[in-house]
């Protein structure tokens, strides 16, 4: 891949390094496992490049395979027996002791499917005939169903966001986006009456601190909301506050109580941003966020330089998905949006996440190589 974008891989490597360093600091045994996953991720990355180096556009032909895979992976945790509920959401599957979050890989499959599907149907869709709305409604329904069946608000939000961005790029119809957005909001509202999980997240977001005690479902006793439902979010904010501008310095952050209990649950996965923010301070995490921006910028540059619709849509989907996933988790931690558990790309601890993100880099590099080769040839 001599003509591939030269910035993507170093940026991904830097983010991975920052992640594994912080994971090591929080628990050395996890860092070893993460390193193994990075090896697998890099292998998957290399394999993808090798396998698709002639023409990745062959994937277009298998779009429905990807579509079915995406939905299948999404629903896997909802199946009894292999699915597992963690923090009120069913988004893990386990085979024996092996845990896996299939939603991460489903994300890549969905983007490939949407890129192929929208490339084919974009003209028809743009005409806005009623019968052509069918597939879109299917996806909307799918997202809602996922939300309902697995309580995985984070993945639903991410999938739907990617879908909207790609729909807009394909059809150039802002009205579609507005309508789809409206449907999502109405749907989530409706669901919030059916599942208290979604409603709780919104309440915790709007008022994480309560002044009077309310029923706490975790302990079964009345408690202040900051000591129960919004405990994780609130303690994570304290972590940010304690870090302040300059941070405590790597290794000097406070993450355990004097009793040895970890103050913030899921610190090395969903909440790794709070750990980074405390130890590296605003200076450090702002730099990390700029790195994400740099990655996204390169991704969209690739989409712009690509010559065919499939490549453009694929690059745009991968780049936007990357940016939006970062927004969903960090926005949740910093109370911009309701908190939904999802990993921070490249940084969070988790095998499925690492592998999926290396596949994402592979995809963008394949597209950029082809685009640059064509430009050089022309």
């Amino acid at each position, binding site marked *: 891949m001599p003509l591939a974008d030269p910035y993507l891989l170093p940026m991904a490597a830097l983010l991975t390094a920052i992640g594994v360093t912080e994971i090591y600091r929080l628990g050395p045994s996890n860092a070893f496992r993460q390193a193994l996953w990075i090896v697998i991720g890099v292998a998957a990355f290399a394999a993808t490049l090798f396998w698709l180096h002639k023409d990745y556009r062959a994937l277009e032909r298998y779009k429905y395979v990807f579509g079915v895979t995406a939905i299948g992976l999404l629903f896997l945790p909802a199946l009894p027996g292999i699915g597992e509920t963690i923090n009120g959401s069913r988004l893990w599957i386990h085979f024996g002791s092996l845990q896996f979050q299939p939603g991460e890989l489903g994300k890549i499959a969905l983007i490939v499917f949407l890129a192929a599907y929208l490339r084919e149907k974009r003209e028809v869709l743009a005409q806005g005939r009623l019968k052509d709305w069918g597939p879109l409604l299917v996806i909307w329904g799918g997202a809602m169903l996922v939300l309902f069946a697995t309580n995985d608000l984070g993945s639903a939000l991410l999938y739907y966001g990617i879908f909207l961005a790609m729909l*807009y790029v394909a059809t150039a119809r802002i009205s579609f986006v507005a309508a789809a957005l409206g449907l999502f909001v109405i749907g989530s509202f409706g669901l919030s009456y059916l599942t208290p999980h979604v409603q709780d997240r919104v309440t915790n977001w709007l008022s994480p601190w309560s002044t009077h005690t309310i029923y706490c479902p975790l302990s079964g006793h009345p408690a202040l909301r900051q000591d129960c439902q919004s405990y994780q979010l609130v303690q994570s904010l304290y972590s940010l506050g304690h870090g302040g501008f300059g941070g405590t310095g790597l290794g000097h952050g406070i993450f355990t109580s004097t009793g040895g209990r970890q103050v913030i649950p899921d610190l090395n996965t969903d909440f790794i941003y709070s750990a980074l923010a405390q130890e590296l301070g605003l200076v450090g995490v702002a730099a990390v*966020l700029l790195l994400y*921006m740099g990655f996204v910028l390169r991704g969209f540059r690739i989409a*712009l330089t690509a010559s065919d619709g499939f490549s453009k849509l694929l690059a745009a989907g991968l780049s936007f998905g990357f940016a939006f996933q970062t927004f969903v988790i960090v926005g949740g931690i*910093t109370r911009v949006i309701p908190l939904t558990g999802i990993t921070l790309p490249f940084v969070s601890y988790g095998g499925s996440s690492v592998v999926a993100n290396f596949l994402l880099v592979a995809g963008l590099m394949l597209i950029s190589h082809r685009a640059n080769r064509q430009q050089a040839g022309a």
Partner: protein
Amino acid sequence: MNKQLLHVSVVALVLLAVLIVSTTYWQTWAVGDLADRQDNAIALVARLTVDRGKILGAGGTVLATNRRHRKHGLTIFTRRYTAADIAPQVIGYSTTAGTTTGLEQSLDDYLTGANTNLTNTFKDTLNKLGDQTVHGDNVILTLRPALQALALQQLAGRCGAVVALNAKTGAIYAMASSPTYNANLIEQPNGFAKIGRIKGACGDASALVNNATAGLYPPGSTFKMVTAAAALDSGAYTPSSTFFDPGYCVEYGQHVSNAGNPDQNGPETYGNVTLAQGFEHSINSVFCNVGKHIGGEEILKYAKRFGFYSVPPLDTPPSASLASGLYKNGKLFDPKNESQIDPGRLAFGQFSMLSTPLQMAMVGATIANGGEEAQPYLVDRIVASDGSLVSRTTPHMLGRPIKPQTAAELNQMMQLVVQGGTGTTAQIPGVLVAGKTGTAETGVAGVYDAWFVCFAPANNPRFVVAVQVEKQLNGFGASVSAPIAKAILEKLLGR
């Protein structure tokens, strides 16, 4: 498609830019707000990683220090109190759960090194980067541990308080409250329950309360210092004004009797006396008549000048002190007009007048200091961990409640009390002692609150001592409290 791509890329970048803004908010703007939250588990641990400043007595005796522990990869410091029972109500405590009281609470910013000045912030940042522990500032008190221990020894488990201070500067040398407790008990299992069971000889005192600043007691005849100050300062009387004492005073058509005479059945009777003699022998009928003549409002006006009706300023948290004054249904009561006051009984310190030992010490100190009232203080200086001075208390005058002339006359009258009046038990050979006894009725026959307020040397007053001992069966100011005050004065005078 490129136009739409540009739009979407802008949206993606804006979303990420929003994250930088929101993170900036939480890591700069909201930092103080978050740190102050009660449920902040991280700040709680962070507090313990600071080598909290020591608290030392006047001579350098360590009263509060730390124990260093290594726990879960963190170095934490927990409080350890030496001489833990001599002044726990003043020093207070600081627990691992983050609760603080007393000076530990009011001086927390200094003790944790969080007091904001540029040098400190700079030093802290350097310490953090160098992986060094943050050291809080050390506090050196005006309290003298040996004197404090003597006061508690003199109180001997009886409920009460001793306040000793410098009349000229307001520096407090002793502020003892009995019953007392061991401050190290707080962190022990069931520590609070153990402390709760300490009731003292009076049976209902709380060891956690600082009786010197938050104990409210009828001041009895020690309040005659205030009444006499009002009588003399307003010009209504002189020390040689004459009275006839039939053994009682008539108020609202009823007899208000003098204190009982131990030699006869019935009240003491003195006949023709001067105001000074009335003060010397603490004759209630004389002060009852003074009160009736100048009025209750006038007495309260002077009481307020001395600081009654407001919480005396002190280094301990304001919540640890109460205001002296008339109390009605447990609340401070400020009468709107004369008809709401019984001036005769108020004049000798009864009629729902309640005072803290500190407030009465301040009255004595004002008289001793020629009419000028010094603000009492407990902290002599605050020194950074590297030995550099952070702050030193400079004496501050609260005001001039009475004229120097009035103060001088009261000083003379108080000398008479010790020379040949009710306070002869406080005499120290070779030193002029001035004082005033108080034996306040508690509502139970034969049980009194015993007071003594004094200062020495009376010709150049330096040391003021106020002693209050609660619920003494047949115990009087002269027999119970004056000997305690004498022992404290002797120690202060180096005898």
